């Protein structure tokens, strides 16, 4: 079955303008990404990889301009060829469609950058910053999750756990699909997929889903959202509920990644680089995107943290059906991980193909040099 193409880039040209001259950073890049595939983009520093990643997200700095080419994400063209007004009411030629990209950004396509520490707001907890992604794109989901827990059938949960006990997983899955709505299903799956808990713990947590803990005020606020959002006191209660649910969801994601949810209430300066990187990844996956761009996610980490990171990536790739674009300067990192590799030199793609053929059978001098230079034990 032909895999759908999610992202197509043709002839992308980007220039950086400084006061005296103009530098061509991307000189006509072609690139494609299909469903469920991981493509690595490798090149030396300065070859244009990060610029490419930022272009896809519409996050180029102000002194950068797209001067030619097209970017098509999920069927929509992201670059328009006319004068348009941006959010500052100034005319710009060829900008990314702002509303289009803003709907997709953070939901369909997300990005994880290097150096997590400087990409997080130092004044807010990391849990809040994960929650923000959901708040903006899908607040409803949080409300529905709380709702579904209030209304879930305790008997059904008990039966499901009994089926798990009997180890009859096929029937258990069918039962899951037939008896629970998608929100409970998601919460149950987020528990069963964790591998840092025993089966006993998982069953207890599943049963705990049915133990409603909302007060009557909270229940009122939840079922009369329209009214509640207009009265200040009630609105506060509603927002608190949503916030807590956001932390809960973020905790589930962290649990899936094998991390301790208590870090959610900490601030960026209290956590190590590896954990902050994990937080960035969590905020990238929380909205179930289809594409994640990783811009050298491991280069600021020591090898052990790098190793943990890549383990994590394999795990979420499998769990979430993602397509990944991995930008790196170390080609050996991509060997285990990428289906295809694109090699970029000086703003242009010089080679692209399946990982094994690029690594083992490349005829390109630059690629061969990249492969040979990696220092191994």
């Amino acid at each position, binding site marked *: 079955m032909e895999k759908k193409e999610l992202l197509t880039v043709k002839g992308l040209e980007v220039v950086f303008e400084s006061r005296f001259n103009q530098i061509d950073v991307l000189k006509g890049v072609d690139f494609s990404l299909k469903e469920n595939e991981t493509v690595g983009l490798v*090149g*030396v*520093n*300065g070859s244009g990889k990060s610029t490419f990643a930022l272009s896809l997200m519409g996050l180029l700095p102000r002194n950068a301009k797209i001067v030619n080419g097209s970017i098509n994400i999920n069927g929509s063209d992201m670059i328009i060829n006319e004068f348009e007004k941006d959010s500052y009411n100034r005319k710009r030629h060829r900008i990314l469609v702002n509303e289009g990209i803003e709907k997709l950004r953070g939901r369909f396509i997300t990005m994880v950058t290097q150096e997590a520490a400087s990409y997080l707001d130092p004044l807010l907890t990391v849990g809040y910053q994960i929650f923000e992604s959901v708040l903006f794109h899908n607040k409803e989901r949080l409300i529905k999750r709380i709702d579904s827990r209030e209304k879930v059938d305790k008997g059904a949960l008990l039966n499901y756990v009994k089926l798990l006990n009997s180890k009859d997983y096929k029937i258990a899955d069918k039962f899951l699909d037939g008896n629970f709505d998608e929100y409970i299903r998601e919460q149950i799956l987020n528990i069963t997929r964790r591998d*840092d808990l*025993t089966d006993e*713990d998982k069953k*207890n*947590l599943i049963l*705990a889903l049915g*133990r409603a803990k909302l007060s009557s005020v909270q229940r009122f606020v939840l079922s009369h959202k329209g009214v509640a959002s207009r009265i200040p006191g009630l609105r506060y209660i509603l927002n608190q509920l949503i916030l807590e649910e956001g932390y809960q969801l973020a905790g589930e994601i962290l649990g899936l990644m*094998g*991390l*301790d949810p*208590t*870090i959610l209430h*900490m601030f960026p300066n*209290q*956590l*190590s*680089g*590896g*954990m902050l990187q*994990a937080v960035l990844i969590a905020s990238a996956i929380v909205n179930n995107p289809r594409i994640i761009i990783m811009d050298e996610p491991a*280069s600021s980490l*020591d*090898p*052990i*943290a*790098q*190793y*943990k990171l890549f*383990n994590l990536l394999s795990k979420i790739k499998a769990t979430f059906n993602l397509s990944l674009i991995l930008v790196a*300067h*170390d*080609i*050996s990192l991509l060997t*285990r991980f990428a289906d295809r590799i694109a090699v970029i030199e000086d703003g242009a793609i010089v080679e692209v193909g399946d990982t094994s053929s690029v690594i083992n059978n490349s005829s390109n001098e630059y690629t061969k*040099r*990249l492969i040979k*230079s*990696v*220092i*191994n*034990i």
Partner: protein
Amino acid sequence: MRIAAYNLKKTYESGGAAFGHKVRSINDISLKIREGQIVSLVGENGSGKTTLGLILSLLLRPDSGQIFFDVPDWVINRYEIALLKKDLDSMRELGKDYSALNKSKLGLMDIRKKIGVLFQDVASSVDPRQTVYDIIKEPMVVSKYTDEQIHNRMNELKNDVGIDDDILHRYPHELSDGQKQKIGIARALATNPIFLFLDEPTSNLDPINQRIILDILKKINSKTRASMLITTHNIALANYIAGDIMVMFKGETEEKGPTKEVINNPQHPYTKELTSVAARKANYDILYYERPYNSDVKGCVYHRMCPVSFEICGWTIDEVYLDLKKSFGPLDLPNFKLKIEKGKILLYGVNKDQLVKMINLYKNKIRSFYAIKDIKQEDEHLSIELFDYKEVQMHKVGNAEVKCHLFEEDVSTLF
């Protein structure tokens, strides 16, 4: 002996003046580097390797400890004998005459000429308003080189480091990463130092440039016999360039010795982790990230992340308490309560079988459970008693030294 350092300690105040707590950056580190030797400090961010390097380059004063720079071997021998015999008077006297920490301002300037430093982020360690030529020239000017000497030295550097003429009149922000590192090296070498400290010289570079820089360093080392101290978090890099290696973790030396021996036959669990990750075949699953506790670590600093830690490694009652809380907490058991009283942990709402089952199930992941010595069932609760931990020593293993409880004499075979 080029550099000999003994029992260096340094602590920082972190968290601002009002709320600060002390962070032990370096805890009791000793190190010796001969002429022509390349030593690599390997460790993650926060292990203290940068601080140690800065102290050895005499850019940072240690809180305590001794440093000798470029002194005859007999001074070192005498000092070490005095150290073993705890002869404080001799130590003080030798320090008075030879210590690098005691020098007058002129003496210090003299020493500084012989030390070159390459910082991790070259871009922020150079004056952005100076041209490359001026940047490299500056140390020579400070050391009062004549114009002819400057001219000759510049030519030498251009050849050794591989700098093209047209770069000399550019500004730092116009250069590529690889070129910036070369400038940094040239500046560090300007006054022909006999000791170089390079702080993660290639961490920001792609593999091609990495190899170029490391090869330059190797060439310089063989040409000038300068000693080098290179910090890195990549043990493969240490393997490529260094003759000797010192593995650091949170301010302590965990293992040190000849590179080949340490990498081919690692003894310390942390070293094993580093080498298997670098060889891309980890032998065990590194399952969790370290939980950020706020208290001081007791015993061996690595014990919380060590996959083979056991009861004497440093588990305290607080750590076991937190782990029990984390294990039983999410289960939402009725009557569950956890307390610490009179040096024992009291556990309510759980019977002995449940606890033993939990311990056996999780023991391999939650190593703090190894510290549980005894569980007594009292009327309403379980009373848990722990083993005492021991402080950790350095042990000699072959040509290397390892700081690990596994090498204590009376450790029973637990594995």
